[in-house]
């Protein structure tokens, strides 16, 4: 390959642009956040997974709700075939509920509670006539009549 007219200028432009691009990319990576992440990691590293999850971004939209879900999960009666969570519906709640109870199928506020499923009621209101299964943090486990 031979040197053509303008190759020197191309080379200089490439070096200048590459340096500028690299500086932009490094700055966009928000290096100032690094110590905070390291502190977060150090703080939670010795805790159980559920506590680490409770302190993480995934539960930031409603940490009490996450605590309720974990409490409900631990108190599910044996043989439960699915969980219907009655809580304010949102995409985040739907996804966290589906993941938290997996492998059990779990839905937020389904129109009916299928047979063998347990309802996890978030908040103080209890549906009339439903059977109480267990109290959980910020809610209760119940089954419909």
């Amino acid at each position: 390959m031979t040197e053509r007219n303008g190759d020197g200028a191309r080379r200089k432009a490439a070096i200048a642009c590459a340096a500028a691009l690299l500086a932009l990319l490094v700055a966009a990576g928000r290096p100032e956040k690094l110590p905070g992440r390291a502190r977060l990691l150090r703080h939670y590293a010795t805790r159980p997974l559920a506590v680490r999850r409770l302190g993480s971004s995934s539960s930031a939209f409603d940490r009490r709700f996450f605590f309720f879900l974990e409490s409900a999960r631990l108190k599910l009666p044996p043989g439960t075939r699915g969980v219907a969570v009655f809580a304010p519906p949102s995409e985040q709640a739907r996804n966290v509920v589906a993941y938290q109870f997996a492998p059990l199928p779990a839905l937020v506020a389904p129109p009916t509670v299928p047979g063998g499923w347990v309802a996890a009621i978030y908040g103080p209101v209890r549906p009339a006539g439903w059977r109480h299964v267990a109290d959980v943090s910020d809610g209760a486990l119940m089954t419909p009549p």
Partner: protein
Amino acid sequence: MSADALGGALLATAAVVAAAWAAGAAACAALVPRGRRAERIGWGFAAGTAILAAGTGAAYSAALGSPAIGPILLAAVAAGLGRRFALGDDPVGTLRGPGGRLAAVTAALAAVALYGLIVYAARALAEPLWPNDYFAIWGMKAKTFFAERAIPLRLFTWPSFEFSNPGYPLGLPLLYAGIASILGRWEDHALALLFPCWLAATLAVLYGWLRRRGAPPTVAAAAGAAVACFAPLYAAPLTGMAEAPLAFALLLLGTALADAMDETDPGARRRLALAAAVAAGTKNEGLFVAGIAALLLAAAAFVGRDRAAARRAALALIVPAVACALLHRLAVGSHPVRGIDLAYLKRPDLGDRLAEALRATWTVHLRSSWLPIAACLVLLLAGRSVAHGNRLLLLGGLGAATYLFLPALCPYGPLWLVTWTQGRNFASLAPLLAAAVAARLAALPRGGAAPLSATAGVVT
């Protein structure tokens, strides 16, 4: 300290990943020529994770008592095949590093790449995997597979679980489930360790491929530094999702495609076959880009200079990609892709929707990033046309052009797809396009008649 603290889980996960990586590297003796250490490391990770995922899927299908048996058996077979079909030395020969001032620049760029890797590791490992789509799609499926030691059909047939995108490939959930099966527990914080490994493997393949194709160490290290610091892809909100693995798979696909078309070495078509399987098994976009690669090969088979090479490469690409897609359909059925409806192609307002999509792309993604995009364009134009670089550029460019157009087909409106998906899709093309730009820059002569690539000291 709690019995299930992060440290122990991380060590255990690291041991599983390292074992898979080592098995993959052993298999790579049949894929990457001897002496190409960086590429063997990168491809070894691809092969190792593929072994874990495919072995776990096979164990579920065969209803083996312990799903961990699948990856172990497959690793043994892959290592045996690697030994049996081991490649010799690379025909390119030995690559010398730079001397003097350039060596210092290369070392500085390598330090920047290492910094990017460390920052990403800190982002990824700071907390348990948490993105919304991780919960809804990748994590939920993986956690269910692990707990049930099977792929339960209800996840894919139940209308209430439509939000989990039943049509998405299962490579990533099977990989997560495979690691959990070997560990014997679900630890979705330690699983984040995979993500900096994906970046490390991406950098290894990028650097190794550029060097093998004649790029000087400075150019190859600069490309690696840029990719390692590319925060839109290696971001905390994408950790747990398929973008970083897809970006790796697309780089594998592009580099192997260029090598197979040039028949650089006897392992090129084998690499292409593995890359096609990994891309198709990771995300629908991977299958789609493999389709673009197949079209490029088809065009080369009809009008290219080496038509026979293109035909052989097409076969190596298409068979594993189609097999992957068919296996998915056989296992869990066929499902429409959410967010895209091809019926919109026939609508009279398609032009208006496309204009809306382009406006939204500009507003949401491009306007705020015009400066780095302009820098990339200058770098692209500053380089010289070189066949292997142009192939990568064509593959990535056609992918990007399609991502620009697809929002026009979104039933929820173009803005929806632009906001939630398009930026991630663009970002996952970054390593592939970085390789293309670097290959073109490496073709610039460096004073006199010597091309930049000559400074690499290629000895044949």
